[in-house]
């Protein structure tokens, strides 16, 4: 695949690693990647195994699926179970448990729950089913919110009234601040969220070096991108610099996507506060539809229980999210808390730190001795 395979080249990796190794000697560095997509890439390609022991990656809270509190999932299920509703959702959310099970289980009980790849698919379902109410479970950071916004604008433009949004979009800067403000945090730098940055650009992260004295490098999602970003962080530290840099220049313009930002602003406004699973209430961290688009707001159209469900006491997600403990150090990791029976946010979607480690990272300290393959098939 073009623009993908070149960034997975192991020979190029070795070159970057040589430099990383040189710069990382004699000290211990902890870099946090905020974005769930980065966590996924890191584990999928086994990047932690090729880094020197002196460079440690801490998996931050950038998984917009994981941070949705159980109470909100219960609300979604309540809407889904309302007669006459077709409830649409991305695949990622289908297995996230609320207080009483997940959307897949609601579907098994008879709710019309359908998985979609795009919010526009949900709109199409609304057009095709005029006698039903179609609700879209909107989740995601600023990467996804503009797409939801365009969809709502289209609904208004085309007069599609049997469509509404259950809005759970969140923004990236507040949790970043929350992490930086925690007293027990020890980090040396950040890998910035590459795709969120295609929308918001690099400037919003300036407070990280300016106020907290930590470098941030916006990184792409292929293994070489991540290694290069780590090298850029190490170089900043080595050269005594502290700034926001962009490794993902092929996709991230410095100022982001003005059109997308304009659309976001047209359709959404910030909620005063929102609960983040594992991080508590954070102010101005989530989006809701503006007054003008209120007719498309599922929370106004349907009555939702709105009950707060707390994570079980055994949950140590807060500590994992801040990098204070590793997933396997959590008392309930792998036993009471597994991907099938998640207790907290870090295990809930495959990019939470604990789920990623459980699904991909266990036993990988075993050296990567290549397999001898023998004869390859003749070209046909």
């Amino acid at each position, binding site marked *: *695949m*073009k*623009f*993908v395979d*070149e*960034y997975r080249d*192991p020979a*190029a990796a*070795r*070159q*970057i*690693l*040589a*430099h990383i*190794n*040189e710069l990382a000697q004699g000290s211990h560095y902890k870099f946090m990647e905020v*974005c*769930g*997509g*980065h966590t*996924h890439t890191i584990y999928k390609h086994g990047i932690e195994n*090729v880094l020197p022991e002196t460079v440690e990656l801490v998996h931050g809270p950038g998984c*917009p699926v994981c941070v949705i509190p159980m109470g909100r999932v219960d609300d979604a299920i309540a809407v889904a179970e309302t007669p006459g509703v077709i409830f649409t959702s*991305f695949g990622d959310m289908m297995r996230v448990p609320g207080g009483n099970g997940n959307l897949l289980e609601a579907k098994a009980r008879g709710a019309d729950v359908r998985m979609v*790849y*795009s*919010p*526009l*698919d949900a709109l199409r379902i609304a057009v095709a089913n005029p006698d039903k109410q179609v609700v879209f479970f909107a*989740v*995601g*950071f600023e*990467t*996804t919110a*503009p*797409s939801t916004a*365009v969809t709502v604008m289209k609904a208004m433009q085309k007069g599609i009234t049997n469509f509404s949004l259950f809005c759970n979009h969140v923004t990236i800067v507040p949790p970043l601040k929350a992490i930086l403000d925690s007293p027990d945090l020890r980090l040396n730098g950040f890998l910035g*969220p*590459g*795709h*969120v940055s*295609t*929308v918001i650009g690099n400037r919003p992260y300036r407070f990280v070096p300016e106020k907290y004295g930590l470098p941030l490098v916006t990184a792409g*999602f292929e293994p*070489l*991108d991540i290694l*290069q970003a780590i090298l850029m962080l190490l170089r900043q530290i080595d050269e005594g610099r502290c700034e926001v840099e962009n*490794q993902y*220049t*092929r*996709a*991230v*313009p410095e100022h982001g*996507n*003005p*059109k*997308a930002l304009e*659309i976001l602003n047209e359709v959404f406004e910030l909620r005063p506060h929102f609960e983040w699973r594992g991080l508590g209430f954070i102010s101005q961290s989530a989006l809701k539809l503006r007054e003008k688009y209120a007719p498309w707001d599922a929370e106004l159209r349907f009555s939702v229980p709105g009950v707060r469900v707390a994570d079980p006491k055994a949950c140590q997600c807060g500590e994992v999210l801040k990098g204070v403990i590793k997933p396997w150090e959590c008392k309930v990791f792998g036993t009471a808390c597994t991907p099938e029976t998640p207790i907290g946010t870090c295990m809930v979607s495959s990019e939470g730190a604990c789920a990623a480690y459980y699904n991909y990272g266990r036993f990988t300290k075993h050296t*990567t001795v290549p397999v001898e393959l023998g004869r390859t098939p003749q070209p046909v």
Partner: protein
Amino acid sequence: MCLGIPGQIVEIIDPADHRATVDVDGVRREVNVGLVMGDAGGIKVGDWVLIHVGFAMTKIDEEEAASTLDFIKQLGSIYDDEIRDFSAEAPL
């Protein structure tokens, strides 16, 4: 929310409605290009875009892509000796 895949625009279906077809290694899907239409040069067949939930989020700047790879290759040429030594000591 991060799964963004590079794909190539192979057809503009309806410029007014912002609909285009994108190709990823032979798999085709309709995407909405409304978020990138304003980019300098607009969107045309042959452009590469980053796709996320059925929308093109940004144009992939092929020059920047090439220069990222060049930078990495340059790392190699400057430090060839040291890399050879390093690889000899610590196999990946």
